[in-house]
């Protein structure tokens, strides 16, 4: 579980996050949504510890990130998996090498154990064995995202962060990625936080949705509650698409 308590963050006097509190539960896909520039990425990076917050607390179960030493933060990071917007796979390493990297760096597994783990992770994201030796530039965007997910789960993380995992993907592949993240979250009981502005993802896997606007928490609920939120800003954001607006009218 990750608990965020009253966090605020400003850059050069510009308040980007204002007193946000929220609890992200394990085994659920927790979504952060909002317009571009609303503070989603800053919130995600603050929770990750990439930005130092100005005030508030971030609890990873019973550990407060704000008070952690560098050593403790490093230890925490070995429990975190992250899927970046562009995949962020290492260009000079094959698919297999990318998933193997955290195992090489942080475990004392033997060679065969590592191979077994790499195969386990890549099988979970449905990557064919023929693709193991290919380089990231030789595979499709959807495959890159799946390899990034495989790499993120290689160390069996307790916490999984995804920054716009569907960006640049077609709707069908996006749905596959969403379902994959949800399935892995449930299987490994991870605390998963997904940063997105893809409405399909919200409808598909939004078990817990946090909507932020101009750095403030506007609404929290589930995908089922989103149609009747009664929040004007959320409605403006969600139903900007005419199809969704018509769907709401017809429910």
């Amino acid at each position, binding site marked *: 579980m990750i608990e965020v308590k009253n966090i605020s963050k400003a850059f050069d006097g510009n308040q980007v996050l204002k007193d946000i509190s929220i609890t992200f539960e394990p085994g659920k896909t927790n979504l952060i949504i909002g317009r571009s520039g609303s503070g989603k990425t800053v919130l995600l990076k603050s929770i990750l510890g990439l930005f130092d917050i100005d005030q508030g607390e971030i609890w990873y179960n019973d550990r407060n990130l704000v008070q952690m030493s560098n050593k403790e933060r490093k230890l925490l*990071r070995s429990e975190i998996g*992250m899927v970046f917007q*562009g995949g962020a796979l290492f260009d000079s390493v094959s698919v297999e090498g990318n998933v193997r990297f955290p195992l*090489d*760096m*942080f475990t004392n597994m033997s060679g065969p154990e590592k191979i077994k783990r790499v195969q386990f992770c890549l099988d979970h994201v449905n990557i064919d064995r023929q693709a193991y030796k290919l380089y990231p530039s030789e595979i499709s965007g959807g495959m890159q995202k799946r390899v990034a997910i495989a790499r993120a789960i290689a160390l069996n993380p307790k916490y999984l962060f995804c920054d716009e995992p569907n960006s640049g993907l077609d709707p069908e592949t996006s749905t596959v990625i969403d379902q994959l993240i949800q399935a892995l979250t449930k299987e490994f009981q991870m605390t998963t936080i997904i940063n997105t502005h893809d409405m399909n993802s919200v409808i598909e896997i939004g078990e817990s949705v946090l909507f932020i606007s101009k750095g403030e928490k506007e609404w929290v609920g589930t995908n089922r509650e989103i149609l009747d939120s009664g929040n004007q800003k959320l409605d403006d954001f969600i139903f900007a698409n005419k199809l969704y607006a018509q769907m709401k009218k017809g429910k």
Partner: protein
Amino acid sequence: MRMGFFFHIGRYFSMLSKVFTRPEKAKMYVRQLFLEIDNLGVNSVWIVIIISIFIGGIMTIQFAHALANPLYPNELVGLGTRDTLLLEFSSTMLALIMAGKIGSNITSEIGTMRVTEQIDSLEIMGVNSASYLIFPKIVAVVFIFPFLYIMSVFFGLLGGMLTGPLVGVVTIPEYIDGIQWLFYPYYVTFSIIKCLVFGFLVSSVPAYFGYYVQGGALEVGKASTKAVVNTNILILFFDLLLTRLLLT
């Protein structure tokens, strides 16, 4: 935001303090080191050989032209070529050329990793990205530079020995006598010290520009250019400083 000279100096040394820290896993760094020696050093061997042969030949012709006086012995052509190669070309000029080749390679590689979030990815895994990416490059370049220097001197002298007799300005025996005449081994020691310093600059300065790049492909390109220009200026500055300190 306009960033001052002292800001860059401070951030450069702050980066170096991150680079020279205890590695997470020494085995991974050693593997990376061998890859960098191959990528940055071994892949530069051919360009060093080609440039050195040509420059050696050109210098031989120019010395012969400048010393075209019956009072000067022809052996001076070999001596002049040797000392120029030993003292300046094979260390400083080579470093300037390598700043273009290796330096831009380092900046664009690390810069691309930065803008495609690969460095953030390393950091989130708990890897000290500065150390993992930059330390092996610095060690590889500092290690390989003296070898490239020795190779450059050898092929430069060879270039002179082939070109001199070919254009008829000096005979092979005169040239060989010349390159053995008044030889001071300290010149080699002095140049190897310069190579170690230049190797450090050629790897660390471009790494700095790549590591802190912000933006996209355009900014990576600009950072590469800045890295090469700044490295060249620093090489010349340290050349002057070391020459003053060690040779005069």
